[in-house]
């Protein structure tokens, strides 16, 4: 296997795996803290049961997230040492802040998970809030470091060396806000819909179950709001990319030729040889509108870039279609829920609705993976946009594919174990939590 491909695949697998745990680690503490807060206010058993049941799942996901995050901090150097040698001093700052945020998160989580009986109830609740806030912050810091790779700033590049380094300017690069917003919302959408989906599925077996019903209600409320906001954030991102990374926009839209106006291409299969998209739906002028807010604006196509500076179109385009498609589906689900649950009290007793929500379970995470594919593959061939190519950054050590095989096997094994573990956790809910046995309504 090609060394560069092996290194990229290993990074993709490690990051794609870690991101699931990171999303859960950002979102679940907030859901738990919300549920515990409801319990503190109402003293209804179901809320404390939920907070406790969720916290057991979170403990597992957080631990795996912590160790797989450590892997990433090493792998950046193991796979792309040249990149880290130059980039470390420039974009290290968000990582140092992330370290702090993660430290606080890990400590607060220890307090939260093991402190149920040892702490004042409100102090315990507060520790949950701290976990959530520091989790979201550490996510934002990491995304800011990634944003720097898309929008490098805070240095001067001369003769293959960086000078005039300004770490603050690097951290607050042009892309950090749009990317951080999009990722944070994505974490909430993916996790909340997955949680709602699992509980909806369990609710189908027993529609009177207060435990699962409350879980779906809380998760859907968070998920619906985030999913509803996500298209807006996506629009901001699109306009931002149109300006900063026109090649990425052209690749994800499979726009081979610069056009004025440019059609929005939905679906289809990009054909690199013929430079066209087969079987696609065209919406006239709509890409011009999405990218520049004007139906007649010119949108730069891939023809403006030399062949060796174009991102792979097929993967980027398809990943983008998946992300946007799921994004709109979840936003629609969230919209339905927000509108109807208020006036229609028995929405969570409707079989069709519960099936619908249950079917959505994995979709948010698929969208997250697709979105990362868009941002990472869409930046190729660059590792630092416009500055350093990925092939020039890769480790000189031959045989990188063996690292890839090893990490793939380990992660596959752990994935299978975690799935089994979660099934067993779910199977014991009724044994441990009184409200899950409660069938009165």
């Amino acid at each position, binding site marked *: 296997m090609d060394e560069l491909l092996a290194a990229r695949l290993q990074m993709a697998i490690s990051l794609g795996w870690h991101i699931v745990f990171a999303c859960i680690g950002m979102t679940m503490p907030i859901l738990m803290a919300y549920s515990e807060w409801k319990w503190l206010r109402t003293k209804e058993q179901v809320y404390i049961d939920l907070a406790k049941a969720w916290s057991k799942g979170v403990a597992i996901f957080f*631990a795996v997230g912590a160790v797989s995050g450590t892997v990433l901090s090493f792998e950046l150097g193991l796979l792309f040492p040249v990149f880290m*040698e130059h980039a470390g001093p420039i974009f290290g700052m968000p990582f140092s802040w992330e370290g702090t945020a993660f430290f606080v998160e890990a400590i607060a989580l220890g307090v939260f998970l093991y402190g149920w009986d*040892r702490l004042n109830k409100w102090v315990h609740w507060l520790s949950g809030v701290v976990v959530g806030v520091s989790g979201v912050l550490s996510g934002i810091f990491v995304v800011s470091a990634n944003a720097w790779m898309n929008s490098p700033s805070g240095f001067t590049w001369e003769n293959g060396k960086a000078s005039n*380094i300004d770490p603050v300017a690097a951290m607050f690069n042009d892309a950090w806000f749009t990317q951080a917003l999009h990722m944070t919302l994505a974490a909430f959408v993916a996790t909340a819909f997955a949680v709602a989906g699992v509980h909806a599925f369990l609710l189908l077996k027993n529609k009177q179950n207060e435990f699962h019903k409350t879980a779906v209600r809380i998760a859907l409320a968070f998920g619906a709001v985030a999913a509803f906001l996500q298209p807006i954030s996506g629009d901001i991102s699109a306009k931002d990319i149109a300006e900063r990374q026109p090649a990425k926009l052209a690749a994800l839209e499979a726009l081979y030729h610069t056009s004025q106006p440019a059609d929005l291409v939905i679906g289809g299969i990009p054909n690199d040889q013929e430079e066209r998209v087969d079987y696609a739906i065209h919406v006239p002028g709509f890409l011009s509108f999405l990218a520049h807010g004007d139906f007649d604006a010119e949108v730069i196509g891939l023809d403006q870039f030399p062949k060796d500076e174009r991102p792979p179109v097929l993967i980027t385009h398809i990943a983008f279609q998946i992300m946007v498609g799921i994004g709109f589906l979840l936003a629609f689900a969230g919209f339905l829920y927000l509108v109807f649950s208020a006036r229609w009290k028995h929405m969570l007793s409707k079989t069709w609705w519960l099936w619908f929500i249950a079917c959505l379970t994995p979709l948010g995470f698929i969208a997250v993976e697709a979105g990362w594919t868009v941002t990472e593959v869409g930046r190729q061939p660059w590792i630092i946009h416009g500055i350093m190519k990925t092939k020039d950054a890769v480790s000189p050590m031959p045989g990188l594919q063996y690292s890839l095989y090893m990490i793939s096997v380990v992660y596959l094994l752990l994935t299978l174990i975690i799935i089994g573990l979660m099934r067993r956790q779910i199977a014991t809910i009724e044994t441990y939590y009184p409200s899950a046995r409660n069938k009165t309504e």
Partner: protein
Amino acid sequence: MLQIIIIILGVSFILYTLLGGADFGAGIVETFAGKKGEKIVSKAIAPVWEANHVWLILAIVILFTGFPLVYSTISVALHIPLMVILIGIVLRGSSFTFRHYDVANDKSHAYYTIFFKASSFITPIFLGITLGAMMLGDISLENTGSFYQQYIRPWYNLFCLTMGFFSASLFGYIAAVFLIGEAGYLIEQKRYIRISKIFLFLTISMGVLVFVVAELQQHHLFNEFFQSGISLVSFGLVVLLTPVVYYLFSHPNTVYLRAAISVQVTLIMLGWFAIQFPILVYERNGNHLTFYNTQAPTATLHQLLLALFVGLLLVIPAFYFLFKVFKDNKGQNVNH
């Protein structure tokens, strides 16, 4: 400014050895700790191991931000042992958590335990191997040698292996002593005291062996050691503390024991830092990487220091709170 960052790097390294080392060591010691071992180990490290582990991440971030060439050099030359460490960290953390949280007590429990113990043992060995390779001076990025010369020989040798076993026995020693205070019953305490003595003996033997093997490999650790005042004083104090620790084994007091061993470990690390300073990686061609010739530009170090300062301001009280909540309510005097 550079000095303060170096001090923080050193401190996080010492804390990782003490806290992370105790967590790894707990997995090693569990093998010898009988039926109750698992319960005591789980109870002791479950709330704290993730936080303890962050000291390693902190050290890595300081390295790649502040001393990028050091980070990229060891990433290339020591790819293989570092990869083993990573797999070890993942398997250990995961299997510990799975074992702790899995609801059923069936065959899978035994598998988690095997993975937990094995990775607790292998990871410290490779941590020691990596450090040994950084000291030994066979690392080279000039792409002139064979794969074996470039990527294997720098760490695959007797000295590095001895360093690996030294680390594992040191971690086991730290864990065994820490666990004396975690064991509830007198019979369990006695067991851990016995294990502590064994690991103390092992650590001393491995420590001596490190020097012997170093001489055999023409790496004159012994000379360097005797040329550094700090190393000599540290070493002297470690030796003087050993009978104190031994005395405390027969009159166990959690606080004194833990303090004594923490001081011992800190002194070992200090002595080692003194030999190494300011070199981080010895290279085959003699162009060693030091703090000075690899430091990042001033603006970066400035921001790094700021982040570290604010970070420690938040983390140290939080850590204190964590340990107070989970480690304070045990009997101070274990003889009851």
